[in-house]
């Protein structure tokens, strides 16, 4: 077992919970760690002249469309075939498989589908190579998405898919309360909620992702930016106890205190909050655009069909800011045939593929041009708003220890929103933790 289980993740072994198993897993992989070079790490110099067959490792393709894209490439490149390696659906599991692969310096994966928040960690550990900007359609991509692929001013991945959150409002309820437009700020939104809730029984106000998980980091990053601050400044220094950050978090806390945001939102992830809105229990919902199709479904599952309007997420002040999500393509530092890999990711980033992907899967892509496309505009009436949301989007902290950072953020925000700590204390504590994490 000890020599053959590199594929079996450290994490998944530990996840099995077996102590004996965890000891085995750690030790088994530990053996291979010791061989890593003490200095700058291997694979820093990339050779983009090598061509030949490659693999493409990415999370499970739930859309079922990815294979068509690879077939299109493989038809024209018989000597440089791309083989798809499907990883688990959960982002955490994908990450641990990528890390195991890197620790073993295996060339099993060539092109890696990386979540936007992993760039810093993978770049800093030199698990992925720096990419030449001139060989990729980077200038055609939305700048906020390129930012997610950049670390220390160097490009380590090509943006492929992106995403921005939107505010979904019940226009029928708004109309009854005397409003024509969705609110632009939290103050306006709270005001509307107060009116609607005074008129109607059994309806809650605003829903978003406030459970203790990654979604909460997204919420806080966005709300702090719209208050005029940032959790980390451009030099990577934490700014969690700034006045803007406090104003942002306090705005959400006020929502909970005054019941504009229901207490049960502390258990909401994407799906729970979508369900609540879809069942007609919420006036407003902040969520990713995928929910729109479900609200407009014809099968009777939605109680809000034709009653939803879409706008930018509410702002604390200034303009509402969503957090940018999405997927980037990077090249493993330990892979062969990087030349083919580079050509392949350029192919995936080309306008034709970007449009086809968006159209066929409904997942927003990174190229600017697709948002001007008439076919897409017809299918998604809120396309301009979505583009706006991504353009103005906030990027989650580009830090190497992202796992620790996001956990600290979640704990601070959750503690405050659930009423256990006050905003000032929560954020000065967070600042201390983040400083510790970035200094080490």
């Amino acid at each position, binding site marked *: 077992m000890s020599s053959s289980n590199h594929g079996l993740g*450290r994490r998944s072994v530990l*996840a099995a919970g077996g*102590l004996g198993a*965890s000891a085995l897993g*750690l030790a088994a992989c530990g053996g291979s760690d010791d061989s890593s070079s003490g200095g*700058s790490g291997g694979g820093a110099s990339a050779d983009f002249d090598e061509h030949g067959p490659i693999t493409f490792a990415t999370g499970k393709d739930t859309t079922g469309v990815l294979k068509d894209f690879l077939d299109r490439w493989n038809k024209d490149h018989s000597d440089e075939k791309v083989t798809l390696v499907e990883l688990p659906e959960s982002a955490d599991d994908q990450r641990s498989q990528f890390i195991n692969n890197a620790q073993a310096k295996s060339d099993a994966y060539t092109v890696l589908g990386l979540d936007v928040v992993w760039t810093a960690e993978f770049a800093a*550990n030199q698990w992925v190579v720096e990419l030449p900007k001139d060989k990729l359609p980077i200038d055609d991509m939305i700048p906020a998405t390129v930012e997610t692929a950049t670390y220390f001013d160097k490009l380590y991945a090509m943006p492929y898919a992106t995403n921005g959150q939107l505010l979904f409002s019940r226009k029928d309820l708004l109309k009854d309360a005397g409003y024509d437009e969705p609110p632009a700020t939290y103050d306006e939104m709270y005001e509307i909620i107060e009116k609607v809730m005074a008129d109607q029984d059994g309806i809650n106000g605003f829903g978003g992702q406030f459970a203790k998980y990654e979604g909460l980091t997204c919420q806080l990053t966005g709300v702090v930016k719209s208050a005029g601050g940032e959790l980390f400044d451009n030099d990577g220094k934490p700014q969690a106890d700034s006045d803007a950050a406090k104003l942002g978090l306090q705005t959400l806390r006020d929502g909970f205190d005054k019941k504009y945001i229901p207490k*049960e939102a502390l258990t909401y992830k994407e799906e729970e909050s979508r369900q609540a809105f879809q069942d007609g229990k919420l006036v407003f919902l902040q969520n990713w655009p995928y929910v729109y199709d479900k609200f407009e479904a014809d099968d009777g599952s939605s109680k809000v069909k034709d009653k939803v309007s879409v706008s930018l997420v509410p702002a604390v002040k200034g303009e509402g800011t969503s957090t940018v999500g999405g997927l980037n393509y990077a090249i493993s530092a330990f892979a062969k045939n990087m030349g083919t890999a580079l050509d392949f990711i350029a192919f995936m980033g080309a306008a034709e593929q970007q449009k086809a992907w968006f159209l066929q899967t409904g997942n927003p892509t990174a190229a600017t041009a697709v948002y001007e496309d008439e076919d897409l505009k017809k299918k998604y009436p809120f396309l301009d708003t979505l583009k706006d949301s991504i353009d103005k989007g906030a990027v989650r902290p580009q830090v190497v220890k992202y796992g620790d950072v996001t956990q600290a953020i979640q704990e601070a925000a959750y503690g405050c929103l659930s009423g256990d700590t006050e905003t000032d204390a929560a954020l000065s504590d967070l600042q201390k933790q983040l400083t510790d994490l970035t200094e080490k």
Partner: protein
Amino acid sequence: MADAHSRRVTGGQGRMAYLLLLPTLVLLALVVGFPLVLSAWQSLTQSGGDIDPQTGIIKQGDTFVGLDNYVEAFTGSGAGAGFWNAFWNTTLFTVVGVSIETVLGVSMALIMARAMRSTGIVRASILVPWAIPTVVSALMWQLIFDANGIFNRVIHYQVLWTTEGWQAKAAVLIADIWKTAPYIGLLTLAGLQTIDEQVYEAAKMDGADRWSTFWRITLPLVRPVLVVAVLFRLLDAMRMFDLPYVLLGRLESGQTLSMLASDAAGKTNYGLASAYSMILFAYICLVAFVFIRVLGADVIGEQNKPAKRGGRRRGDGEDGADGGSGGSRRTARRLRTTAEGSMA
């Protein structure tokens, strides 16, 4: 048994026996010992180094840090508080969970042993929870404990089960007990079925009521099996991971020691992860040792101290019950060997 064996064989035969066993011993050392030693070694190292401020690149390789990881685990700013929280959670889930499971499991076994006519159906329905994979049952309970889920609808009150607090711990306990009480029930039933009916008949003749029959006959006779079942559950509960992980996610209220180890490994902090694993390993060893010492010794000691059980007797049917349990002691010894044999 080893003594009896060596007495009978000559020196040459003994050496031959060890030679034949050698491959197994080597394999065991490789599969069990080697990784354990490596893990212990890794808990003394730290992977990765500082970040170069110019390029943002991390220095690679492991460095020896002595007991730093253990110090960090117990006293670190974030990690230390997390450790004690996880330690108490693990202990709480184990002690409360296994206690209730034992009571419920034994009750289930008694019901299963009694329901003669529809035994099959009763047994199957009691065993369904045990047959469901933990992750699946965790997902199921997540739906049940949803803010608008079935549980809240039944009690007509909204408890936010999956938020921080005692209700989250209760949710884990309920889901865990639901799933694992049948396991204890099943093993106990196996033990019950080996008890000779004549023992009960004798007790009946002596006029023992149900309560004293249970305390003085059923429980002592089923005890060897029960002790093993509880021990297994104890060790299982102490390394609980998947249930709170799926049910509560990152909530501190459900954080257990093995989740801490997994968490640290996920952050590529393998040294700290190994340290957590070693601490949990030591804790489990300690508990197993104490449990076997306290209860195991008593099981064996019972043979030498026949008066011990008789000390706690009730007013009515004194002589009869004594006679019953005296007779049962002999039977118990016989059954114990069978039960232990089958468990091994």
